[in-house]
């Protein structure tokens, strides 16, 4: 059966509206029963996801972005994300043939030596096909037509919905940020550039980054070398040893900080779908749809702040740095202190927790994401009506890292912090 996208603003509006109605009902129920808050939030998250899932297409991606903003989600919630990921409408053979012809000027059988018309993997807003040319195995990512256009209409609906949900809080910057990321993610030319950049600059024999074939790529088609490996779920199902898992976690952790401090770029999407577990402990990085550049000045301040956090500097000095970084709005000292202690401190305490000691075992601290999840909701309950625009680069780094921590916890892996802390100290 066909997975037709609900088209037109009206039908999409209906789905969003329905979800808002359901949320309203849940909220009322909570007031009546005064039940477990966390459970209720999970239910609300469920409803939002259901609605976004029903919208399909771009909205699935938006849902993922929302999830990225809140990395500590209960496992059930994360499962929903991966399910919705598969709900992106598949591109049938007729359409694949048409897209390749439009984008590359040739039909698949002429552009490649062989081309599998059935996709082997889903990708962000598209799907990936196996092909060969000049005896090489290639992965060809194809994007569904019209995605770029529907971002706009979807986002305006989400904006409308979020505004009601946010109870007067300004959400424009969040929406703007998500929209920008979506536009970046649908631009395969940009992704090709980022992929080539990382391939050229990551100097680690255990990190494998595919080679881009520009002649066989366009804005909506991206051809790279094919990497043979397991995705996260299959890898975990293959019962890897503790040592193997620890090595992978360490590799992901160290590479993230290496890219941050040396290349000034981060792969800002901690979705496990972006990793491939290859033979001999090698790790494939395969999706460069969300790469962020960080500025020197920012990085210097960011680094200093985190070193000071690890050294347990006093709150006043920390607050000053947060103000410089644009994470705390300049107000009276008392207001800033309250805001820091109520909102920011719980978050940065959690964020730095794995970095404090020489190593951190996520198997022992297997409630890391649960605590994070509860803490974020607690912070949200406090209802600070802030219209302050937070520093984007800051958010990206911490979000991504927290996403990785959630992944490490899922792996039950242990990481050592020596290399990373050394990078931080050297950067100073």
């Amino acid at each position: 059966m066909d997975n037709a996208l609900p088209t037109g603003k009206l039908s999409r509006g209906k789905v969003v509206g329905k979800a808002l109605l359901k949320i309203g009902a849940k909220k009322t129920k909570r007031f009546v029963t005064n039940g477990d808050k966390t459970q209720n939030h999970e239910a609300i998250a469920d409803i939002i996801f259901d609605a976004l899932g029903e919208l399909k297409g771009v909205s699935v991606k938006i849902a993922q972005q929302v999830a990225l903003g809140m990395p500590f989600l209960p496992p059930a919630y994360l499962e929903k994300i991966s399910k919705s990921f598969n709900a992106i409408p598949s591109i049938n053979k007729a359409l694949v043939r048409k897209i390749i012809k439009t984008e590359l000027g040739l039909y698949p059988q002429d552009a490649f030596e062989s081309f599998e018309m059935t996709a082997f993997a889903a990708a962000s807003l598209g799907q990936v096909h196996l092909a060969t040319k000049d005896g090489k195995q290639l992965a060809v990512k194809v994007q569904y037509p019209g995605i770029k256009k529907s971002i706009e209409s979807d986002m305006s609906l989400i904006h409308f919905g979020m505004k009601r949900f946010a109870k007067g809080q300004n959400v424009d910057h969040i929406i703007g940020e998500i929209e920008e990321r979506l536009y970046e993610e649908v631009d395969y030319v940009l992704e090709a550039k980022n992929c080539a950049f990382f391939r050229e600059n990551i100097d680690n024999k255990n990190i494998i980054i595919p080679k881009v074939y520009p002649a066989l790529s366009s804005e909506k088609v991206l051809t790279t070398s094919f990497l043979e490996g397991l995705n996260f779920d299959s890898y975990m199902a293959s019962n890897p040893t503790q040592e193997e898992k620890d090595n992978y976690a360490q590799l992901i952790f160290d590479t993230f900080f290496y890219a941050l401090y040396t290349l000034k770029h981060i792969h800002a999407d901690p979705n496990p779908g972006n990793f491939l577990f290859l033979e001999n402990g090698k790790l494939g990085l395969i999706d460069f749809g969300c790469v962020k550049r960080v500025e020197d000045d920012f990085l210097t301040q960011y680094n200093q702040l985190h070193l000071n956090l690890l050294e347990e500097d006093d709150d006043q000095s920390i607050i000053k740095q947060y103000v410089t970084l644009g994470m705390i709005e300049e107000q009276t000292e008392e207001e800033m202190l309250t805001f820091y202690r109520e909102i920011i401190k719980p978050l940065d305490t959690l964020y730095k927790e794995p970095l404090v000691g020489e190593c951190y075992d996520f198997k022992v601290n297997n409630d890391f994401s649960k605590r994070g999840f509860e803490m974020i909701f607690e912070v949200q309950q406090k209802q600070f009506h802030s219209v302050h625009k937070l520093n984007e680069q800051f958010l990206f780094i911490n979000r991504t890292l927290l996403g990785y921590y959630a992944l490490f916890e899922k792996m039950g892996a242990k990481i050592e912090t020596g290399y990373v802390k050394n990078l931080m100290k050297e950067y100073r």
Partner: protein
Amino acid sequence: MKITQSAKEKTKIKILQSAVDLIIEKGFDNASLREMAKNAGVSNPTIYNYFPSKEKLLYAYIEQKHKEAIASLQEIEDFQTYTLREQLQTLIETELELYLEDREFIIQIADMVFHASGLKMGKLYETNALFIETVDEMLSIAIEAEEIAEPPFREHMPKLFWDYYIMVVAYWVKDDSEMFENTTQLLDHSLGLAEAVLHSDMLSKASDLGMFFFKTHMLNSLQKFATKKESFSKIKRKLGEVLHG
């Protein structure tokens, strides 16, 4: 001297292409067969041998594109693994792809068919034999392979599909989206819907419902008419008056 079939075919394609170019340049009304002949490098009698009129040339163009599209489909190695919907979608996408280089020409034709009186829609039907045959074959194979159940009005399906195709072309002519991706989406979604209907057996259920009404109510009324001869002939008389003024 006998001209071989393939040489004839080559000349025909040459004339068609120069005709299309000339029509794009000068417009259908101002482009003469004489000039087309000159551009194609053939004599005047030759062009009249191939195309007695400009209209005939136009229909030949459309037939030629059907031929090319089907030839392109035959080049797809695993076409038999495509679902019926994918096969139909590929057929239309391929035709549109072929039209793309002559888009301005197609726009003129569409204008003439849908707005001005120059061309009759009905005339276009004469060009669709190959298209309908191909669709009919795809349909037969899908039914035989039990991909879909035999739909009611099976024999009318290919013609209906051709009407649908004309509608898609009309949409494409007006489509100003980037890379005509709106047409691609319209095609994808509408065929998706058609596929869902065919798979759900909804058509035959709808026709069952229709038959039920017809048999139990319409048939009854008809029989009543038939038995009441008097009133029946009265109605006939009335109808005659209306029809013949």
